[in-house]
């Protein structure tokens, strides 16, 4: 699944300061019936974004004009808990986001994001709170996510924090590679290994 390379991203951000946002909220199960990966932005946060009659909920951050076009989402603790559905990560990407910042991510969601070109940036709870405060105070607040230097900076104050990502995944994101490229290159080694498995 090809995606655009990720180097340094500077953008305003959508704030979503709710804990334990699960994948069923990010994309409800009834929208998982596609057999192709197209248009997953339409139902991104469907039930939080729209009323039952299809009108947008004005107070939901993703609907607020002042944040429109942001490429970063700052989410609450334990973001992406629940299902392994990669559709959740696709909908983040298709909505136009390239980075989610949170003080904690669920494992499978984080992994899925990395596989589809969305950078999950884990920061301290204190730094996340500072980002929320800054965005709420001024929606034009810009955040810089510098993948080569593994650093996230609040541009208005210059406050920054470093984040972790393993070297392999970082190289993939920087170059737009994915795991299949790597695995296909070592297929002979895999085939030899498979012969040693008892069942």
């Amino acid at each position, binding site marked *: 699944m090809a995606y655009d390379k990720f180097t340094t991203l500077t953008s305003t951000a959508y704030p979503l300061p709710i804990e334990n946002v*699960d994948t069923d909220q990010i994309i409800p199960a009834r929208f998982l019936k596609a057999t192709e*990966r197209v248009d997953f932005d339409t139902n991104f946060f469907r039930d939080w974004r729209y009323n039952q009659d299809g009108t947008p909920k004005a107070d939901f951050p993703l609907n607020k004009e002042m944040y429109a076009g942001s490429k970063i989402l700052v989410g609450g603790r334990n973001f992406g808990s629940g299902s392994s559905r990669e559709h959740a990560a696709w909908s983040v990407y298709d909505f136009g986001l390239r980075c989610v910042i949170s003080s904690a991510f669920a494992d499978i969601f984080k992994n899925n994001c990395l596989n589809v070109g969305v950078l999950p940036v884990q920061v301290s709870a204190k730094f996340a709170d500072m980002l929320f405060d800054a965005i709420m105070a001024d929606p034009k607040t810009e955040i810089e996510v510098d993948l080569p230097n593994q650093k996230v900076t609040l541009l208005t104050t210059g406050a920054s924090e470093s984040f972790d990502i393993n*070297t392999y995944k970082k190289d993939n994101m920087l170059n737009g590679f994915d795991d299949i490229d790597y695995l*296909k290159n070592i297929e002979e080694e895999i085939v030899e290994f498979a012969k040693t498995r008892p069942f």
Partner: protein
Amino acid sequence: MAKTLFDKVWDSHVVRSIKDGPDVFFIDRHFIHEVTSPVAFLGLESRNNSVLYPERTFATADHNTPTMNQHLPVEDPLSANQLNALEKNAAKYGISHWGLGDENNGIVHVIGPENGITLPGSTIVCGDSHTSTHGAFGAIAFGIGTSEVEMVLSTQCIMQPKPKKMRINVVGKLGLGVTPKDVALYIIAKQTTSGATGYFVEYAGEVFEDMSMEGRMTVCNLSIEMGARGGMIAPDAKTYEYLKGRSQTPKGADWDKAMNYWQTLYTEEDAVFDEEFTYEASDIEPMITYGTNPGMGMGVTKSIPTAESLEGGIETYRKSLGYMAFSEGDSMIGKPIDFVFLGSCTNGRIEDFRAFCSIVEGRKKADTVTAWLVPGSHKVVDQIKAEGLDKIILDAGFVLREPGCSACLAMNDDKIPAGKLSVSTSNRNFEGRQGPGSRTLLASPLVAAASAVEGVVTDPRTLMAS
């Protein structure tokens, strides 16, 4: 260095380790279903790859399937389209496919063990987070995304950093009416939905040793709900007895060889875990959830905690209770319910139907309750009939439906309407999980049965004692 069960299984599947990166991790068994596989097959084709080991992948239809009239064409065109795509892809690449109507069909995590595909010491993945179920057999099993489904199809490997290790011990004996589901919901309430994030859990202690294989599957199934990548339990005599003679298990000399290997699968005494917790079985009572994540659970006789008594996230907590239309301090006992759901990969096995029937036998379903009883597979249906449980179910005013994921995630026709309250034996009570606007209380088959006959949330012990 002394090894844990997890170390032994993980380390024996590493094809190569990447410095400061993931392991190239070999997968023995891969389950696919109609929802998370179609895009993986498209990816495979767009790269001109093929399926490297089709015999290691098994396909079943479950998430989208109706649970009534399965002999008729599937009405929802989108569901039918996904089911057709799975059938077509399986046929094209020579993958075993147990589609709708096949005698082996059922929920992926029910049919894997049932057919002996799930084996101790193996690695199992599926594009479904409840793949952790298979850890009950001493396998490393976990959910993956669609990109990884494509990786496994084309290379039989995924790339994963090795998780940290946690051991959870539950010691002592469980009380009356306390089931494996309650043990799991108790642990999740203690750990919260993120307590085990980054870890792989081994369950140990008397309670798990005493537990049936079905019970162990229920506990391992729910490991993901505390954020763990998966959970596992060391194989023992009970495991081997369950597996022997199943259609896909090794036979004859291969069985003996496998047994020799399986008996090495235990955590050595000096092995060290990154985290360890011990809980007392006697502290666990039948559980029920009251909020919108599986960590928001409590003993069925308790009252909903106040926001101030919990750590952090008061706004999120109040949003959650607001969605459920509950208040801090509410008692759950006696709350009128609209729906009961018995089934899912958590509680759709024969033992769950036995437990449900032990309560409803000789009683009647409350008129105000709609109940959906959905076996996890055709084999479970057959067993229900062989044991005469179908008669008990019918006499008590219930109907037995056909196998599938059903109202666990409402991708099919079984949806709880907005605002309605459901006691569900499934695994998630997220907002809208059982249908937009639906409200879910997670509980054991015993709590579900007692609530189904009383029409209100009921402590099953009051019916068991009488």
